[in-house]
């Protein structure tokens, strides 16, 4: 079955078993990457299935609104990602609040600052000290996990920016926000990320430290 815009439009118009078959084929042939992406963000295959299938039902409900541009698979992927961000927001809202490591301007709290200094001064060597690659990776992963736990939506969008090269328009569509609100979100991504990666910046290169 061709998964092009024409067949999608016809299946949607026909409804019933035609759109059902179309979505079954999408799930069978392309579902794996949707599930993997959702599982990576949610750290659970079960939660990933919930998100992807909720998204598929949304596709079913909204298929008549598909206009492109581009192929329906890209449109469906956007709905999957949008549903995933909703799930991350919900999860964050339900999670117990922890003491933030930074203030509203992204400046480290005194305790966090001290921990960073302590980390860079004693426990971890500088690159010049030939720090083993796996240690650098371990510190980075820990920083990212903490960032993703505190700001799952921002961490996930930032990951997609890096891996897929999303531009402002793509982020806007994902978040369903105005251009201004999207710019603010981008600023917040950077601001929120900094304190969590401060330890890693301090580790890999003093010169790379975030301002």
């Amino acid at each position, binding site marked *: 079955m061709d998964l092009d815009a024409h067949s999608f439009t016809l299946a949607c118009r026909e409804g019933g078993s035609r759109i059902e078959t179309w979505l079954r084929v999408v799930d069978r042939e392309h579902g794996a990457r949707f599930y993997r992406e959702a599982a*990576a963000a949610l750290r659970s295959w079960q939660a*990933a299935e919930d998100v992807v299938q909720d998204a598929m039902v949304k596709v079913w409900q909204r298929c008549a609104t598909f206009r492109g541009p581009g192929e329906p698979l890209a449109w469906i992927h956007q709905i999957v990602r949008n549903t995933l961000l909703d799930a991350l927001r919900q999860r964050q809202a339900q999670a117990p609040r922890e003491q933030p490591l930074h203030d509203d301007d992204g400046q480290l709290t005194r305790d966090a600052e001290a921990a960073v200094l302590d980390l860079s001064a004693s426990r971890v060597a500088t690159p010049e000290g030939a720090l083993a690659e796996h240690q650098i990776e371990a510190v980075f992963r820990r920083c990212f996990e903490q960032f993703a736990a505190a700001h799952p939506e921002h961490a996930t969008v930032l*990951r997609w920016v890096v891996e897929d090269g999303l531009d402002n328009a793509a982020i806007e569509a994902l978040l369903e926000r105005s251009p201004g609100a999207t710019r603010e979100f981008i600023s917040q991504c950077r601001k929120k990320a900094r304190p969590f990666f401060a330890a890693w910046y301090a580790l890999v290169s003093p010169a790379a430290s975030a301002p």
Partner: protein
Amino acid sequence: MQDPDDDQHWLDLMAGRAAPDADARTRKEAAWLRAAMLSYRVSAPPGAPADADQRAGRLLTRARDAGVLAAAANDAGARRPAGRWRHALAAGVAACALVLVFLPQLQGPDEADDVTLRGAPVQRIDAADAQSRRQQLLQDLRAAGFEAQPFERLGRLGIDVSLPVPLPPAQSAALTRLGLAAPPGPSLQIEFVAPEPAGP
């Protein structure tokens, strides 16, 4: 306070795009973080998605629960017991009866156009002059406070209408006045179809 342009440069650099005007610190900050995020990608936890057939079964259950798939259509492509066919037939007859009962209410107040419900949110209007009929309805919808956008797809003219959920009674009544049925979801699509030309 961070310069908004600086944040934009940072985003572009993080996405792998050029940002020639970015300052050196921003370049360094983005370069290190981007390199690490690409080198140490976050992967899915151990395990794998469920079997495709099991997933499909659960997807259909969800679709039925959400009301986008009728119970009788849930096993298309599979062998159906005769009893299910009877249920499907009964559902079809019931649906036809409902359409016959409610069709007169779907007629426009001042139009002879034929309105037919297709699928969940798509409503078709047969109109000899689709262009002007669409323009008139577009104006009427906007005048009634709806967010409506015209479109053209596969040679058909139409209108997309965004609706709040739940639909306030006043807006539901406005749709009815315009000869349209209020859909259950957040959007309504209207298509205008010219009647088949008469034969020679």
